[in-house]
C-alpha cells in the first residue's frame, strides 16, 4: 500500500470513528441511562414501575422556563396514576438554579447536573428536550423544544397512553 493510500485509509477511518461517536445517543426503544449513576445534585424520586418524564432544562433557556407550568399541571393530574416528572437542570452554577426553584416552586422533582455529565452522555439535541420512559425504563418518545400548548397536549396524550399500558 502506497503512502497516499495509507493516508486515504486513515482519513476514512477517522470519519467513520467520528460518525460512530456522534451516533451514540439514546434511541427510542432502548433503555434510558439510570439517573442515579451521574451524581446529580438533589433528591431523585422513586421511579420503579412508574412512567417517567426526564426533562433537560436550564434557567437561561426561555422555552424551558415556559414549560414548567404545563409540566406542573400534568404532574399534579397524573401523579396518582404513576407519572413521575424529573427535571434535570444543566446549570453549571447553583445560585440561578436555586433562585428559579424558589420563585416557581414546581410540582415535580428537580435535580441539577452541574458537571453536565448526564446531558453530555445522553447527547441532548436541543434545549429543552424531554425523554418519556415507560414503566420498564425504556425510552418511548423524545420531545425536542417546547412549543406551548401543542407540545403539552401531545406529551400528555403520550403519557396517558403509556400509563394505560399493562405493566
Amino acid at each position, binding site marked *: 500500500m*502506497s*503512502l*497516499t493510500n495509507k*493516508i486515504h485509509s486513515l*482519513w476514512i477511518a477517522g470519519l467513520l470513528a467520528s460518525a460512530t461517536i456522534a451516533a451514540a445517543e439514546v434511541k427510542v426503544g432502548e433503555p434510558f441511562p439510570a439517573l442515579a449513576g451521574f451524581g446529580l445534585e438533589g433528591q431523585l424520586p422513586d421511579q420503579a414501575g412508574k412512567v417517567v418524564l426526564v426533562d*433537560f432544562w*436550564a434557567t*437561561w*433557556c*426561555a*422555552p*424551558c422556563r415556559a414549560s414548567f407550568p404545563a409540566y406542573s399541571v400534568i404532574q399534579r393530574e397524573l401523579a396518582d396514576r404513576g407519572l413521575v416528572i424529573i427535571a434535570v437542570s*444543566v*446549570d*453549571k452554577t447553583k445560585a440561578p438554579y436555586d433562585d428559579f426553584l424558589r420563585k416557581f416552586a414546581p410540582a415535580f422533582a428537580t435535580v441539577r447536573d452541574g458537571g*453536565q455529565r448526564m*446531558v*453530555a452522555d445522553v447527547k*441532548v*439535541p*436541543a*434545549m*429543552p*428536550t424531554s425523554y418519556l420512559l415507560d414503566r420498564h425504563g425504556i425510552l418511548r418518545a423524545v420531545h425536542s*423544544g*417546547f*412549543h406551548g400548548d401543542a407540545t403539552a397536549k401531545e406529551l400528555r396524550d403520550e403519557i396517558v397512553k403509556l400509563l394505560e399500558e399493562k405493566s
Partner: protein
Amino acid sequence: MNRTRLICLAAILLGLFLGGCATVQPWERAALADYKMRPDRDPLLGAMSEHIYFSREASSGGRGVGGSGCGCN
C-alpha cells in the same frame, strides 16, 4: 518536493486547522443566552450604529438576523 510529501503536508495542516473547530453543544449555550450578548440590548447604540452604517455605505436595513441567543427550541 514530491507529490507524496505535499499530500502529507496538506493533511497535517488540515488536521491542525480542523482541530481548532469546536461545536458549542445545546447545553453549553448559557453565555450566548445572556442579555449582554443581544445586539439590540441598547436602542441608542443601535440607532448610532445604524446611522454610521448608513453614512458609510449609503444603505440601511438588512439587520434582521439575530447574532446571539441560546438556540433553544
